[in-house]
């Protein structure tokens, strides 16, 4: 039996019907093609080894044991029994920055803390990634005001951030979703070289 033709809004499992205001956005989204343009397609592909390494990296993201405030508790909750980050290979919290792969900014970054964070980031070996967890690390969150004197408004002012997870604090599920997003990003071959 042939399925009736569906409206464009319903194509794909996650797409939902949106109001008329979303139409221009959807149009733009449809215009982006999956195909790689000829001029940027690589001539020689070292795909296999690269893919393998990226897959290994994506599945072995060891976070730094590093909590700043409220979000750290949810980060620990994500590592605890119910949510268990270890399922995705990310449960090995390393206390030493030298052995960590991903820095999860979990909490408000104060100006007093900022130089320390920068130093920790520099201590981590490449390739390394950063996850900004919670409103404070995105833009200052609830502590953002005119003339705020104490905090750094966003982790991206200190280090390049790969994934932003909104929430105050984000639930552990959100952290896991962010981690999976980072895994996707790593597997896609993009990574921060530095």
């Amino acid at each position, binding site marked *: 039996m042939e399925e009736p033709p569906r409206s464009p809004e319903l194509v794909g499992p996650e797409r939902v019907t949106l109001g008329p205001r979303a139409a221009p956005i959807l149009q733009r989204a449809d215009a982006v093609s999956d195909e790689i343009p000829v001029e940027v397609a690589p001539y020689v592909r070292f795909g296999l080894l690269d893919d393998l390494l990226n897959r290994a990296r994506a599945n072995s993201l060891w976070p*730094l*044991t*590093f*909590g*700043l*405030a*409220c979000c*750290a*508790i*949810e980060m*620990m*909750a994500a590592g*605890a*029994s*119910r949510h268990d980050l270890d399922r995705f290979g990310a449960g090995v919290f390393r*206390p030493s*920055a030298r052995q960590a792969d991903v820095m999860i900014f979990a*909490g*408000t970054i*104060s100006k*007093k*803390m900022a130089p*320390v964070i920068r130093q*920790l980031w520099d201590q981590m070996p490449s390739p390394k990634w950063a996850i900004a967890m919670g409103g404070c690390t995105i833009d200052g969150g*609830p*502590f953002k*005001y005119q003339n*705020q*004197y*104490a*905090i750094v408004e966003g982790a991206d002012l200190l280090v390049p951030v790969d994934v932003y997870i909104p929430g*105050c*604090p984000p*639930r552990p599920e959100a952290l896991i979703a962010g981690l999976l997003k980072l895994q996707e990003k790593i597997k896609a071959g993009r990574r921060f070289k530095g």
Partner: protein
Amino acid sequence: MSDEPRGASSDPEADPTHPEAYVLNMGPQHPSMHGVLRLKLHMIGEEIVVAEPVIGYAHRAHEKMAENRNYLMFLPNSSRIDYLSGMIYNIGYCQAVEKLLEIEVPERAQYIRVIACELNRIASHLLWIGTYVLDIGGVTPFLYCWDDREQILDLLDAITGSRLTYSYGRFGGVTMDVDDAFLTGTRTFLERMKSRLPEYDTLVRKNVIFIERSRGVGIMDRQTCRAYGVTGPCLRAAGVAYDVRKSEPYGIYDRFDFAVPTESAGDCLARYDVRIREIEESLKIVTQAVRDLPAGPIMPDKPKKKFKPAEGASYFAVEAARGAFGMYLVSDGSEVPFKLKLRTPSFSNLSSMPKVLAGTMVADTIAIVGSLDIVLPEIDR
């Protein structure tokens, strides 16, 4: 070999009174500094000569914000001061403002507040047990405690919509009513928790290594506690039955039958015992509150819209999970507080550390700091 000399003589930070000591910076990023505490330790070998806590790495300007926003707008901040017992802080701030404005709170809301606060206190103590045992090297109890804590978070999540940083209180009541599912869930949890406590007893309290690591470690006697203003379980472990819920009952705490557990030793083991018994007492309070919960509204019939207290100063204290939390609130008659001083318990508790830590070993330092149950954003505010 490099020519660079190591050890004490090369240390620019070395303490002049102990030239042979070297300086070890513990934190702000260290697995057992509970966030961003920094301990500057002057040590000889493994022994600590001078310990100096350096704080401020989580300073978030709560007090400045309070002076620049109206009373209601500061409400979400309150649970972020101490996010482990955020409910108590949130409700406490509401109660302080209610006192200032003389707002009556309906009965049902009072009981719901007690249930929520005591559940939060249990969650906070559970987390402490986990982190304390983790600090002295045992990993598994940590996860067991978190498992039980998740049950509480589920309950609170159901009525507040948040797992950690609640904004449940309103001036005059609470935001959402509890339903039968919540009450049934709470009763189930009470039963579960009662059966879990013996398990902690076998897994943690009867363990020889645990006892060896905790008994006689980090003794804070009554005099030390009084000199530094130490409150909460740390004070009760030193034999002082001081609990704000008893000494100046707020809300409806005078209606419940509960004891203030004390121990006499004042060491880490006593602090553990006190907290375990406080969990039992909180379970008792919740049982009574659930039993006596009256029907009725959860907010006043005509809630106030403008909050403009009269000029003057007031102080309001509640018993948070870590000790006495006080709010010194000064109003200049406008909609914005003139001054809000947050007297947070861990600030005073931690300030006793230079005295307590001197002469201990590194491993004990970790255990003692862990046994205080500090939350850094609460100290730094």
